[in-house]
């Protein structure tokens, strides 16, 4: 186990260096000069542009910029954006919004998804099962953008149940609607994964044996079936949490939530290398961390999985 963890951490370090460098170079080679575009259709005076380029070291070769950036990282400095604000501060201000949104959505996926999956799995072929099946197909096939705008217009504007935008209403009301919208996609997957898993487990030999032994159905399902069916779902849920933390750009924009996704989107638009690399690196670290965690949890849940 220690060797396993050690190997994963080493991999993590290599991925980290590789990814930050690649992203830095990619942002650097995006066509167009970010400083010239700062003022958009009212360009800044040439002398100001030159001054800003020097200030942000954009006049240096990319490898020097990268070394400077990594050097700063070790000193705890994530760099500055083109308006002079430290990237670290900007990210710190935005993580709470994204984390709140992601965890709310995730909690919805976990609770409702696992429950629905369990119920439909036990009553497979019934009316509820079919209804949920149709529902999940719909949920996965409608683009999140369409869902978001529609939900905003129906539940926010016409019914007035939720605020349309911003975080000022606080949790939960400001986060619930966007969370439901982004949860729907994952929810559908969780439900169907869980359902399939439960159906398989219910047909397995040990369940038949337990039933034959006279164990109450409640115990069979609640303890044995649950535990055996949840492993594949857990893998999905963990990866999905990583996705939720980084993949909510569209929803953050529609609902005006100043989260990390919106920051990344803005930074890509303005070619702010340090911000893009900072956010992307954080997201990659989250993905890597969750994947290590999944492996560990899986091996705990299922002793047959060994990491040599």
């Amino acid at each position, binding site marked *: 186990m220690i060797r396993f963890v050690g190997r994963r951490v080493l991999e993590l370090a290599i991925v980290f260096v590789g990814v930050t460098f690649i992203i830095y170079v990619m942002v650097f080679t*995006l*066509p*167009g*000069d*970010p400083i*010239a*575009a*700062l*003022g*958009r*259709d*009212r*360009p*800044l*005076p040439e*002398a*100001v542009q030159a*001054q800003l380029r020097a*200030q942000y070291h954009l006049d240096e070769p990319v490898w020097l910029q990268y070394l400077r950036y990594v050097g700063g990282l070790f000193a705890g400095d994530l760099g500055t954006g083109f308006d*002079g604000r430290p990237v670290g*501060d900007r990210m710190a*201000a*935005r993580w*709470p*919004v994204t984390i*709140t949104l992601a*965890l*709310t959505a*995730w*909690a919805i996926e*976990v*609770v409702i998804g696992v429950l629905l999956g369990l119920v439909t799995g036990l009553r497979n072929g019934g009316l509820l099962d079919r209804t949920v099946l149709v529902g999940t197909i719909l949920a996965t096939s409608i683009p999140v953008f369409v869902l978001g705008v529609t939900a*905003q217009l129906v539940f*926010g*504007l016409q019914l007035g149940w939720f*605020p*349309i*935008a*911003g*975080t*000022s*209403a*606080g*949790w*939960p009301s*400001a*986060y619930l609607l966007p969370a439901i919208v982004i949860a729907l996609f994952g929810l559908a997957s969780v439900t169907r994964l869980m359902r399939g898993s439960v159906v398989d487990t219910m047909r397995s030999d040990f369940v038949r044996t337990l039933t034959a032994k006279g164990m109450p159905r409640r115990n069979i399902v609640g*303890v044995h079936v649950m*535990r055996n069916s949840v492993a594949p779902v857990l893998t999905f849920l963990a990866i999905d949490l990583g996705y939720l933390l980084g993949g909510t750009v569209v929803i*953050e*924009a*529609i609902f*005006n939530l*100043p989260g990390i996704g919106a920051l990344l989107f*803005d930074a890509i*638009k*303005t*070619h702010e290398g340090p911000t893009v690399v900072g956010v992307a690196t954080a997201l990659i670290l989250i993905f890597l961390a969750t994947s290590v965690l999944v492996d560990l949890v899986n091996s*705990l*849940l299922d002793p047959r999985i060994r990491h040599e």
Partner: protein
Amino acid sequence: MRRKQRTATAGVLLVAAMALTACATGGSDTADDGTRAITMGVTDPGTLTPGRQLVAYDFNMAVWAPLTFLESDGTLNYVQAESVESEDNITWTITLKDGWTFHDGTPVTAQSYVDSWNTVAYGPNAFENSGQVANIVGYTDLNPAEGEPTATEMSGLTVVDDSTFTVELIGPDSQFPLQVSQAQTAMYPMPESAFDDLDAYNTHPVGNGPFELQDDYVENEPLVVTAFEDYAGDEPTTDQITFVPYTDDTTAYTDVQAGNLDIASVPASRLPQADEEFGDAFYSFEAPGISYLGLPLWDERYQDVRVRQAISMAIDRETINDVIYGGAYTPATAFTPAIEPGTPEGICGELCEYDPEAAKALLDEAGGFEGSMEIYFPGGGGLDEFYNAIANNLRQNLGVDATAVPSADWAEFSDKRTASDIDGPFFSRWGALYPSQQATLRPFFVENGGCANCIPWYDESVKAAIDTADATDPGDGSAYADVQDLILEEFPAPPLFFETYSYVTSDAISDLATSPVGNPRLTHVELAD
């Protein structure tokens, strides 16, 4: 086995609990205590300092008072200035009104202005709006194109006494009083405390205007300004304005519909329906903005003036305006926006009118058009429909193989245009900050005038004519008519639309006023009872 199951459940519960506690702060509602408060949707400003801000005009116009204010009826009012006068249009004497203070209680003096303008001009400060003071003598010493600055104070600025200072310009310019009007934010004064720590000032700017900022600026948090008790000018109609940042202006628009926000600008995608959805609460303010279809004059296919004229006559401005902009714009009939005084409306004549047959005939007469025509515009800004419509016009009416091609983003577009690396017609627009023909003609037609290659035609005679008009204009813009005649002769690019800036308001507002710069006048918002 049983125990492990419980840990799994506990894990799920723990996560749910984390979600519950990780919540943000609660909302705040005002207005119940009789405070006249309004909210306005904005783009998160990033920088607030007048000499630096790029998208915080509304905030700036609320927190600072300009020297002069141009009213909608064209009269120039004096706000912080008592007078702005000159004998020769070169040396201007600005006298300030007595008794005005900054929000920190310090008096607004001639020295405040001189120090502020020097700070804006000083190269190493890299103030984004330093171009606004570039016509003052000594600017190039502080902000040389190459090398280090040789001075920290512009020699053209002289403090006469506490309330008087003089400004020497590099050439005669009759439009100077307009250059210190409401939207030229770099000309606003800053208090002495600003100069010690410009970064701190940017987080909490202190102005001399009707509203003062309450708390420090925090990225993506609403900015609250309240009426400044000791403001020496006209009292605003509201006590408090909250500027709420929105990532997507469509969301702000929807929020006004729901009544959660009082004022928002209308995104282009909502213009066709805004009138229907808002009725009287939809405002389209005439603005000093104009769009052209830039033409690549470095390409020989566009050398014949008849080709350029044919392109202009093949564009159905009326229909495009009705369908894409809900009729909010005005088809251009001159080379500067109609709101700029003295603009010879109609000077473009039949060249700006839709006449597909005449256009085709003219193009054939010029020998036709070889090859394909790719209209290049900045992508991601909601301009696709507009340029597709123009491409359709040109394809159908001129038989040219025209398509509209977006760039990846603004940076890519501006790079290519600045480098003349475009071989088709392209996006070209300018929004002036003060309504004078000078403020539109210079950026477009003078090299380094501001809009690089917007219209890549820099003619000595046009520049000379603009200089003459600057020196001699009696104040009604009539002197610029000669410039427009010269441009018409060469017809370097078809003007497309005089722009309007559009806003919608909630039920809380009964009337939204404006000024000739096209922004809402936040000091004069009328609230519904």
